[in-house]
């Protein structure tokens, strides 16, 4: 790999590792210092490697430089005596020797602990996702701004406030205890699922970036399964769910980046390997005495990947949505249940059920009614789709809705 490609590559893989270890060594109140230190390390690499050539082991070079920079800072800076030293959480810390442990094991542990610190319900979800992208996924501020379709300043402010809050609330960088883990891991899973959805459903037209967000969410979820404490059935279920969704990556977007609906997808483009992987995770998740919502959703996603028996498929999906809703209500599950109902019992019955949902401010509600009415009453179908178009804010959704309206319009004029 040439230097030009090598540094961005290493930035993506190593920034997060070194940052997590430094955060853990310096404490939650010094996340920004840790980021800056690692950022400086990469700047120095760019300068030095350009002049002297790429070192034999570039990652080790980065580790050594970052480690030395951190040690220098700790020794020199008054910060050390005044702020950091009383709070250093490092177990192996000796008064004379500051250890920054960049072993594989400690990197892994530090990243997991940071994950729990960042997925802290005291800060808003979009800030949790932003910080995760920065600290756990090595995204630059520009990339995060792109992902959220906003500007650098907004993201900087958002992350700054989040870091202040973590500091204020003295959030610990550690894994929760055995009896806390189930509750705390829920927050982490919620954030990882949001991160995945940010990529899967976002309005961003940059397909590469979107896929990247999904893959990062999967990588972090997978990391949770590799640690004994955090390897809970709900985690494996979420990973299964992500695999099933991700299997349709190539099939759900056309060459112009436009969304292709499930019904219209080319099944041969579904990724069999990811589907099989999802099945393996779902089987693994079937332990314990508690079914998380991810279990239901993964099972629903599994049935969506089947193609051999449409009748059985939709009956299963309807049943699973019923059970999911009985456990936990969400508008999207209510809408999807009604769609499944139409597949099993027909559109007229589903329309009756749909109209009870009273989700008038939800554009997907009008999309659903538009779909259900399209075989029953074209005029009504168009009215609902126009309403959906009016309240939808996502460009990709608007396009899909417009296409439907024009198709129905042609039918009507025949």
């Amino acid at each position: 790999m040439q230097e030009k490609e090598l540094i961005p590559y290493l930035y993506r893989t190593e920034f997060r590792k070194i940052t997590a270890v430094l955060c853990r060594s310096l404490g939650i109140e010094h996340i920004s210092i840790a980021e800056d230190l690692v950022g400086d390390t990469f700047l120095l690499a760019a300068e030095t490697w350009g002049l002297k050539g790429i070192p034999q082991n570039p990652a080790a070079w980065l580790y050594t430089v970052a480690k030395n920079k951190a040690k220098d800072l700790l020794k020199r800076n008054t910060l050390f005596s005044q702020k950091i030293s009383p709070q250093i959480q490092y177990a192996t810390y000796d008064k004379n020797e500051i250890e920054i442990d960049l072993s594989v094991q400690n990197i892994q542990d530090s990243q997991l602990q940071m994950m729990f610190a960042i997925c802290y319900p005291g800060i808003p979800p979009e800030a949790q996702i932003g910080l995760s992208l920065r600290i756990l996924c090595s995204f630059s501020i520009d990339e995060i701004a792109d992902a959220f379709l906003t500007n650098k300043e907004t993201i900087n402010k958002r992350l700054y406030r989040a870091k202040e809050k973590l500091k204020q609330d003295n959030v610990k960088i550690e894994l929760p205890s055995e009896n806390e883990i189930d509750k705390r891991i829920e927050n982490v899973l919620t954030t990882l699922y949001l991160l995945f959805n940010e990529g899967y459903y976002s309005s961003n037209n940059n397909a590469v970036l979107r896929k990247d967000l999904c893959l990062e969410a999967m990588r972090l979820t997978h990391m949770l399964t590799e640690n004994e404490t955090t390897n809970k059935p709900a985690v494996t279920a979420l990973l299964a769910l992500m695999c099933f969704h991700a299997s349709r990556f190539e099939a759900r977007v056309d060459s112009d980046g436009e969304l292709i609906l499930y019904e219209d997808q080319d099944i041969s483009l579904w990724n069999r390997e990811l589907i099989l992987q999802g099945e393996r995770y779902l089987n693994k998740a079937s332990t314990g005495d508690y079914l998380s919502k991810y279990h239901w959703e993964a099972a629903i996603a599994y049935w969506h990947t089947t193609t051999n028996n449409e009748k059985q498929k939709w009956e299963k999906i309807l049943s699973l949505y019923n059970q999911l809703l009985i456990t936990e209500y969400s508008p999207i599950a209510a809408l999807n249940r009604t769609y499944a109902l139409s597949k099993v019992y027909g559109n007229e019955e589903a329309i009756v059920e749909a109209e009870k949902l009273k989700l008038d401010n939800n554009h997907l509600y009008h999309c659903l009614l538009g779909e259900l009415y399209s075989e029953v009453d074209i005029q009504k179908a168009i009215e609902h789709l126009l309403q959906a178009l009016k309240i939808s804010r996502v460009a990709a959704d608007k396009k899909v809705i417009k296409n439907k309206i024009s198709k129905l319009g042609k039918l009507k004029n025949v």
Partner: protein
Amino acid sequence: MKEFAMIYRSEPMGEIKLTPEGNLEISKEWENWMGGIAAQNKLVSPGMRLGNEGRTVKPGNIVTNGPYAEVKEIVGGLSIFRAESIEDALELAKSCPMLNVPDGSVEIRDIIQMNG
């Protein structure tokens, strides 16, 4: 929104089917009905199904066997719904599968919260 109890009554229905895990085996029509209520965000709790074992105790330590000593209908279970009014709750109850079985009925009662 207020909360209402749905109290299901019918003739004693004999054996109760359980899943291998020991949970109640829910028929498709009950699951669809309950799922439909939940989809409207009106399900507070699916509640419980009552079993067939029962005793009734009365003043003077008089104990009778079973929940159905003298009556033809017994309480089979109950759920808690959320609704705007008792009329709204009644609408939800009208499609209950309990009304398809002999002497089936649903009694709707408002719930008074006990705080403290």
